[in-house]
C-alpha cells in the first residue's frame, strides 16, 4: 500500500473495472492440466494467471529433512520473470519466500501429513501473470492441485482478500486499487468452519473496518470455494466419461 488514498477509485458505486464493492473478479479454474505432475491446476483470477502442481507423496530428500511421523510439506511460490511489468530476476526474493512460508503454514494442518511418514508432498506455484492477489490465487490453485493429486485433506483451503479503497471496504483488490488504495487484507480459510489459516494486512483499518473486511473476505472465499469444487467435479466427470467410453 503506497496508500496515497486517492479518491477516484470508486465512482457512482462502481470500481474502475466496473465491479461493485463486494464483487469478485472473474475466476476460472481448471484441474489436471499437466502431464508430468501428480496433480495440477490452472487458475485465472482477473488478470492473474497461475499454475499449481503437486508432486508426491514421494520420498523426502535430503533424508535429514524426513520426519518419522509425518510428511514434509513443501510450498514454493515463484513468479515468472515476465509476469510483472518490470522484469523480475529469476529465483526467490524475500517477498516470495515470505509468501511461500505463510502459504505452507496455511496448508500444513489441512493435509493429512501423518498418513505419509518420511515422505514429502511438494507444491509448486508459478505466477505467469500478476495483477494483485497472486498469493490468494496461488493458494487457491494449490489446494485444487492437491485434491487433483488425490492427497487426503480435511477440506479445500481457499483464499481471498478484502481491502479499503477510496474509504470504502471492498472485496478482491486489483492492481490499481492495490497501488493507490488504503489497505489490503488477504486471508485463507477452511470453508467448513470459517477458521482463518492465513491473514496478512498492509495498510490502515479502524477496528470496525477490519471487522467488515474480514467478513467480506470470508464471503469471497466461500464463492471461490464453489468454483474450486466445480473444477474438481468437471475433472472427475471427464475422467468418468473417458472411463465409460473405454468400456
Amino acid at each position, binding site marked *: 500500500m503506497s*496508500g496515497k488514498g486517492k479518491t477516484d477509485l470508486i465512482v457512482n458505486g462502481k470500481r474502475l473495472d466496473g465491479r461493485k464493492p463486494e464483487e469478485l473478479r472473474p475466476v476460472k479454474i481448471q484441474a489436471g492440466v499437466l502431464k508430468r505432475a501428480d496433480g495440477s491446476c490452472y487458475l485465472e483470477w482477473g488478470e492473474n494467471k497461475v499454475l499449481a502442481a503437486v508432486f508426491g507423496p514421494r520420498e523426502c530428500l535430503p533424508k*535429514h529433512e524426513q520426519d518419522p511421523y509425518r510428511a514434509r510439506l513443501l510450498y514454493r511460490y515463484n513468479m515468472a520473470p515476465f509476469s510483472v511489468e518490470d522484469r523480475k530476476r529469476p529465483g526467490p526474493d524475500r517477498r516470495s519466500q515470505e509468501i511461500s512460508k505463510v502459504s505452507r503454514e496455511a496448508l500444513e494442518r489441512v493435509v493429512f501429513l501423518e498418513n505419509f511418514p518420511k515422505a514429502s508432498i511438494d507444491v509448486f506455484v508459478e505466477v505467469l501473470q500478476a495483477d494483485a492477489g497472486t498469493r490468494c490465487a496461488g493458494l487457491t490453485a494449490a489446494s485444487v492441485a492437491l485434491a487433483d493429486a488425490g492427497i487426503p485433506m480435511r477440506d479445500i483451503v481457499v483464499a481471498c482478500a478484502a481491502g479499503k479503497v477510496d474509504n470504502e471496504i471492498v472485496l478482491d483488490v486489483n492492481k490499481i486499487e492495490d497501488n493507490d488504495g488504503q489497505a489490503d487484507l488477504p486471508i485463507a480459510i477452511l470453508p467448513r468452519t470459517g477458521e482463518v489459516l492465513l491473514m496478512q494486512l498492509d495498510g490502515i*483499518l479502524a477496528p470496525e473496518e477490519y471487522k467488515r473486511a474480514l467478513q467480506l473476505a470470508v464471503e469471497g472465499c466461500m464463492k471461490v470455494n464453489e468454483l474450486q469444487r466445480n473444477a474438481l467435479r468437471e475433472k472427475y466427470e471427464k475422467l468418468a466419461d473417458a472411463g465409460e467410453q473405454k468400456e
Partner: protein
Amino acid sequence: MIVMEINEEILWSVKRDAIRALIEAGKRSDNREWNQFRAIELAPDFVRKAEGSCFIKLGNTQVLVGVKFAVGVPYPDTPESGTLMTSAELVPIASPIFRAGPPDEDSIELARVVDRGIRESKMIDFDALCITPKEEVWSVMVDLHVLDHDGNLLDAASIAAVRALLDARFPKYEDKKVIYTEKTKKKLPLKDVPVSSTFAKVGSALLLDPLLEEEKAMDARVTIATTHEGNICAIQKGGSGSFTLEECEKLASEAIKAGKEIRKQHLK
C-alpha cells in the same frame, strides 16, 4: 548441523506437553497475565557509530537494532521519496539452532513484518527525505541484530526499531558526501509511532508476548501492529493452526490496548 536441531527439537517435544498442560490450566511459567508484556528495558543510542540505535531486553530476549542513513537514488516510480530497508540477522550467538548463512525464511519474515509495521503506519514521512528529486534521497537502513532468543523476537525487534528511528539523527551531508562522524541535531520526519503486539495461541489459550517455550508449544501466532490513533496497520498470522473470526477481532482490540501502554512507557 541437522542433528543438533533435531536434538533441540526432541528436547522441546518432550517439554511441549508439560508446557501445554500448564497453559491450558491458565498459567504461564513466569506468572504473567495472558495479555501482559514481559518487563522491557531499553538502552537507547547504544551504538554511537549508527545514526540511531536501541538495545532491548524483553525478558531474556535481547535484540540490538541499528539505523544507518545513506544517500541514494530514488526508485523510478517514487522519484521524490526516500527509502526504507529492513534486514534481520539471526546470528548464531542467539540460539543453538541459528546458523550462520544467508537469511532463512524466519529472518526474512522477521525483517518483513517489522518493516511492514513501520511502513504501513506511515511512521516515516518519506517525501521529506528527498534531497533532489529523481537524483538524491535519503535511504534509511534498519538492521535487526538478534543476540539472545527467549521468545517473541517480532515485538522485541519492532519496539527497538521504532525507538531507534525516534532517536536517530541525520549525519552531515556536504559536497555530495555523507560525513558520518558529524551528526546533526535533525531527526527523522515522523508521523506515527506503531507498536507491534504478538499473541500465541496454545490450544484455546491466547498469550501476549510469548516466551520461547510458549512459542515451541503454540499452534499459531498473530502479530498486529497498531497506530497511535488506535487503528490497525499491519497483521501477520503465522504457524499452522487457525484463529476463529472472533479471536481475530478480540486480539485486534487487545493489540490496540497493549500498543497504547508500550507507546506511553517506552516510545515517547
